[in-house]
């Protein structure tokens, strides 16, 4: 991630730009990790929809997904923690900069 105050070069990212994936990535932008159910509930997504998009983000290395045993569940279900990778953070910042430019009427980044 670029240091505070440093301008990020706008780069439109087609993988991130899918509406759900953009919202998922942006949600994790200021958090080290978020649990699957928190992302699902905050964005009001279904499990399947979120899983599918996380798989895409994970396959291209923008997020990491790790499983952890749940303390409150007696069955075999586990907590699923999601985090942006360094590459994911950089790509997200660049994509947000590109969107901001487009929103301001400068389509040069798209």
């Amino acid at each position: 991630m670029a240091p505070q105050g440093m301008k990020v070069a706008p780069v439109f990212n087609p993988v991130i730009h899918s509406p759900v994936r953009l919202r998922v990535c942006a949600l994790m932008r200021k958090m080290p990790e978020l649990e699957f159910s928190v992302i699902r509930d905050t964005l009001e997504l279904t499990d399947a929809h979120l899983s599918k998009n996380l798989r895409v983000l994970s396959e291209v290395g923008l997020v990491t997904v790790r499983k952890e045993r749940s303390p409150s569940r007696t069955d075999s279900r586990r907590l699923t923690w999601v985090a942006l990778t360094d590459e994911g953070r950089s790509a997200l910042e660049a994509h947000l900069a590109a969107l901001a430019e487009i929103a301001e009427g400068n389509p040069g980044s798209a």
Partner: protein
Amino acid sequence: MANHSVRPSHSESHDPLAPADALNALSDLDRDSANLAERVITPWWYHAALGAIVALTVGAQALPQPAASTLVVLGILAIPLVMHSYSRRHGLATTQPAGPRSRRLLLISVGVLVGAFIAVLAFKLIGIPEVWLLLPASVAGMATVALGRRYDVALRQEIAEGWRHRA
């Protein structure tokens, strides 16, 4: 790894992204950030537990060895345990600052803790009666609770600021 750094998705359909669409997408992110910030509320016991552990760890220096060292080790182990327990229960980790205000408060908290340990060591070197070690212990414990609560507020505000502000 796929190359995903340059080509815009809408280039596949040759439709440029309209400014209004970009604005809508960014507005959605602001709303999501505000929703997430509402979830970042630590339970009442969280900072109380951290404050008690810090106070006990610092105050333990008034005890003879090996009890003092044992309590310090237990305290150092207990702090991440409490943080981890909260993260697992609520599905989010709050240990990473989300901006300059929360970063500053985190650094101040660490500074207070280090200062309390230095004060305890200084008291022992000078030979001040051990009961006085409770003073830095109490200050460290209370500061942990007070700064922790302020940290929560700053973290919530910085998360709610949305996409315009970088962490």
